[in-house]
C-alpha cells in the first residue's frame, strides 16, 4: 500500500509535468506529427528528463527503487516510435544502471526493451494508418501492462539468485503494473484531450471562416464558372495557409491557384482518382501527406503532397469539389478539413440560392414569354385577316378556322397548368397547324407518327408549339416549294423522343437571343427532369432541321 501511494504521488507529479508540457509550443510538435530530427531531439530531452526525474522520485523499498520512470519511456515510444522509445529507454536505463543496486542491470535492460516495444506499437498503428490510436488511453494502458510483465520476465531471467528476484517481484508487481499502466493511460488521455482541444482551436478560426464566407458571398450569383471559381480559389488561398487551391466541377478543373499552377491547368479534365472518388461517392477525401501522400498525377516534381477534397453539393447532388493542397513536408492542419467542409457548404448553399433565383427568373421570363410568344400578336391579327378573306369566299371554312383559333387561345389563356399530357400538347399544336395550313395555302404537308401509348405522358405545357412554330416560321415558310413537317413521338433507349422535322434545313442558331422559344422549353425540361433531357436541334443544311425533345421514360414529374 505504501508503495502504491508513493507511486501515485509520482504519477501526480508526472501529470503536472505532462500538463505543463502540453501547454508549451513543444506540444505542438506532437500535434503536427511532424517529426524532424530537431523535433525528435526536443522530445528526447523532455521524455528522458521525465524518466530521470521519475527515477529520483522513486521510493527505495528494500533496496529497490519503485518508480514510474517507465511511464516516460512508454509515452516516448508510443508517440515517437521505435527510435525515440529506444533512445529514451537507453538514457533512462543507463541512468538507472549507474545508480547501482543488485538488480540495476535487468532493470536498465528492461527500460530499453520497453521503450523499443512501445515504439513498435507506434509503428504498428502508423503502418496501418491509424496513428491516432497511439493516443488512446486503452492502447497506452495495454502497452504498458505488457511492457511491465516483460520487465518482470527480464528481471527473473537475469537476476540471481532467482528466489530473491521472485520475492522482489511479488512485492512490486501489482503496484508497478497498475500504477504505470494507469499513469501512462492517464497522461495519454491528457495528451489526447489537449490534442482535441488543439483541433477545437479551430473554432477560433471561425472568424477566419466567416471572413472567407463573406468574401465568397456574391461571387456565385451567376453560378459556378471558371471566373467565379478562380476568384473563390484565390480567396481561399489568401485566407488559409494551404499551398494551393483547386475548384472543379464534375469533370474539369475550373480553377487552380497556388503552388503547381504551372501544370494544373484550369479547363483540363480531373486527373486525380481521389477527386473522382470524392465526386462519385459524395465523400470528403483526405491524404494527410504523412501516412498517405498525394502524388500529383500530372507532374512527378509537383511540390504538393497532401490534399483535402471536399465535395460541393446542391441538395444531394455533387456538383464539383473544392481541393485544398498542402506542400510537401508541411503539416496539413486538420482544421483545414473543417474549413474546407464549411466552405463547400457555403458554396453549395450559394449555388442553390443562385439556382433558385435563376429558376425564379426563368419562370417569370417563361411566363412573360408565354404571354408574348404564345399570344403572338402577329399570329392573331394575321389569322383574323385570313379569316376575313376566307369569309368572303367560304364562310363555312371561316367558321372552322375561328373554332381552331378559339381552341388555340383558350389553351394559352388557361395557363394555370405547368404540366400537360402529350395528348393535350398535340391538340394545341393541331389547332395551330390547322390555322397555319390555311395561311400557307397547302404549302404545308403534315405527317404525324405518334405512339398512341404515350398520350398520357406528362410534359411541360407549351413544349411542342414553339418548336413547331419554329419549324414553320424559320423553316418551311422560307421554302418556295412545298413544305413538309414530320411529328414523331416514340420510345427509344428507355426515353421518350419527340422529333419535329421540317424539310427546309434553314435553322440558324441565334446566339444573341437565347432564352426564347426553344431555349425556354429546353430549360424547363432540364429543370424538371435533369440535364440529360431537353431539346436538341440538328440541322442538315438545306435538307432538314430536326428538333428533338428527349424526356424520361415516365415523362416529367
Amino acid at each position: 500500500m505504501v508503495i502504491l501511494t508513493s507511486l501515485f504521488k509520482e504519477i501526480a507529479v508526472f501529470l503536472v509535468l505532462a500538463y505543463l508540457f502540453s501547454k508549451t509550443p513543444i506540444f505542438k510538435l506532437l500535434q503536427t506529427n511532424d517529426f524532424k530530427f530537431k523535433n525528435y531531439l526536443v522530445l528526447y530531452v523532455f521524455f528522458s528528463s521525465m524518466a530521470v526525474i521519475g527515477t529520483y522520485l522513486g521510493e527505495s523499498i528494500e533496496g529497490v527503487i519503485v518508480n514510474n520512470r517507465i511511464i516516460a519511456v512508454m509515452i516516448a515510444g508510443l508517440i515517437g516510435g521505435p527510435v525515440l522509445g529506444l533512445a529514451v529507454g537507453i538514457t533512462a536505463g543507463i541512468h538507472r544502471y549507474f545508480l547501482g543496486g543488485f538488480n540495476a542491470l535487468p532493470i536498465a535492460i528492461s527500460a530499453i526493451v520497453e521503450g523499443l516495444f512501445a515504439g513498435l506499437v507506434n509503428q504498428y498503428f502508423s503502418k496501418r494508418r491509424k496513428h491516432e490510436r497511439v493516443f488512446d488511453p486503452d492502447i497506452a494502458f495495454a502497452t504498458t501492462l505488457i511492457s511491465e510483465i516483460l520487465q518482470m520476465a527480464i528481471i527473473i531471467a537475469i537476476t540471481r539468485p532467482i528466489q530473491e528476484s521472485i520475492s522482489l517481484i511479488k512485492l512490486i508487481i501489482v503496484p508497478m503494473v497498475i500504477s504505470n499502466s494507469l499513469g501512462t493511460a492517464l497522461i495519454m488521455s491528457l495528451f489526447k484531450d489537449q490534442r482535441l482541444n488543439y483541433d477545437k482551436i479551430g473554432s477560433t478560426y471561425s472568424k477566419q471562416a466567416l471572413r472567407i464566407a463573406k468574401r465568397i458571398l456574391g461571387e456565385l450569383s451567376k453560378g459556378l464558372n471558371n471566373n467565379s471559381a478562380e476568384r473563390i480559389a484565390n480567396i481561399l488561398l489568401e485566407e488559409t495557409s494551404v499551398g494551393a487551391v483547386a475548384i472543379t466541377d464534375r469533370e474539369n478543373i475550373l480553377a487552380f491557384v497556388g503552388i503547381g499552377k504551372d501544370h494544373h491547368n484550369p479547363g483540363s479534365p480531373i486527373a486525380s482518382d481521389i477527386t473522382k472518388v470524392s465526386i462519385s461517392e459524395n465523400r470528403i477525401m483526405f491524404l494527410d501527406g504523412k501516412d498517405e501522400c498525394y502524388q500529383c498525377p500530372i507532374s512527378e516534381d509537383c511540390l504538393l503532397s497532401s490534399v483535402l477534397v471536399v465535395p460541393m453539393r446542391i441538395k444531394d447532388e455533387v456538383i464539383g469539389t473544392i481541393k485544398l493542397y498542402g506542400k510537401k513536408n508541411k503539416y496539413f492542419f486538420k482544421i483545414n478539413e473543417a474549413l474546407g467542409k464549411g466552405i463547400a457548404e457555403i458554396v453549395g448553399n450559394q449555388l442553390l440560392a443562385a439556382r433558385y433565383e435563376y429558376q425564379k427568373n426563368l419562370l417569370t421570363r417563361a411566363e412573360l414569354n408565354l404571354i408574348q410568344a404564345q399570344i403572338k400578336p402577329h399570329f392573331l391579327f394575321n389569322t383574323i385577316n385570313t379569316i376575313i378573306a376566307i369569309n368572303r369566299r367560304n364562310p363555312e371554312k371561316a367558321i372552322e378556322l375561328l373554332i381552331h383559333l378559339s381552341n388555340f387561345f383558350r389553351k394559352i389563356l388557361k395557363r394555370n397548368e405547368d404540366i400537360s399530357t402529350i395528348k393535350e400538347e398535340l391538340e394545341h399544336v393541331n389547332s395551330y397547324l390547322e390555322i397555319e395550313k390555311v395561311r400557307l395555302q397547302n404549302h404545308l404537308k403534315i405527317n404525324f407518327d405518334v405512339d398512341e401509348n404515350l398520350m398520357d405522358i406528362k410534359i411541360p405545357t407549351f413544349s411542342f408549339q414553339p418548336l413547331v412554330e419554329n419549324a414553320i416560321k424559320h423553316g418551311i415558310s422560307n421554302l418556295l416549294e412545298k413544305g413538309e413537317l414530320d411529328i414523331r413521338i416514340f420510345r427509344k433507349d428507355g426515353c421518350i423522343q419527340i422529333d419535329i422535322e421540317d424539310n427546309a434545313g434553314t435553322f440558324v442558331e441565334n446566339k444573341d437571343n437565347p432564352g426564347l422559344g426553344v431555349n425556354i422549353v429546353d430549360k424547363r425540361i432540364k429543370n424538371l427532369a435533369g440535364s440529360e433531357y431537353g431539346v436538341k436541334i440538328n440541322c442538315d443544311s438545306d435538307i432538314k432541321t430536326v428538333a428533338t425533345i428527349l424526356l424520361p421514360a415516365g415523362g416529367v414529374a
Partner: protein
Amino acid sequence: MNLNAIIIDDEYNAREEMEFLLKQTECINVLEKCSNAVEGIKAINSLHPDVIFLDIQLPGINGFNLLSMIDVSVLPRVVFVTAYDEYALEAFENDAIDYLLKPVDKLRLEKTIDKIKNSILQNSNQKINLMPLTKIPSVGANKVKLIDVNCIEYVHSDETGVFIICADKKYFTVITLKVFESRTKLFRCHKQYLINPDKIDEIIFDENSAGKIKTTSQHLIPISRHYLKELKEELGI
C-alpha cells in the same frame, strides 16, 4: 386618277383580301401580287407600279430590306402593311406614304389612297432611308439564298439577267447593277460588269482594249475605256 399597284405579301389570303379592298376603291389597278421579296423586286423592276402595298414580315428578306434592293429611279410609293405594329412604324413614316394594320379597314384605306394621290400630284419625293446592302438574295432551287456582299467577286449582267460570281459559284439575282452600284462597295468597270475592289488581284492593261481585271480566284473581267478613269481614281492609281 387611276393608280397601278403591286401587292407583296407572303400569305395568299392576305393578298386576296388586299386586292379585294383595293378593287373596291375603284381607282387602283392591281398589276401583280407577289408572295416574296424576290418576286416583288422583279415585278417592281419590270412593271414600274405607282404604289406597292408591302407586308413587312416576309420570309427571308423583309419589307425594309426589299426597299433597299430597289433602284431609286423605279422606287414606287410605299405603303407598309403589317399585322402588328411591333416596328413602331411611326419611325418609318418618312420612308413610306402610309402604313396599314391588318385586318385593313376600308375607310382607313381610303385615307391612304388620298395620301398617295396627293403625293403623286405634288410630285413630292419619298425620303426613304435606304440601308446599304450586305446580303444579296438569289433564287436557288427551292429557296431564296442570301449571299454576303463580301463574298462576291464581281457582278455581271447579260440579256438573261444579272449574275453574282463568287469564288466558286455563280448565282442569279433580281437585283439590278444600278442597285449594286449605289448600295454596295462594288463599282463599275464595264457596262455589264461591277467589280468588288477587295477581290482585285491584278489589273492587266493591253494595247487594244482598256484592260482586264484579274480577280483573286483568277476570273478575268473586262474594263471598258468609258470607266477606266473612274476606276483609276477609285483605286488611287
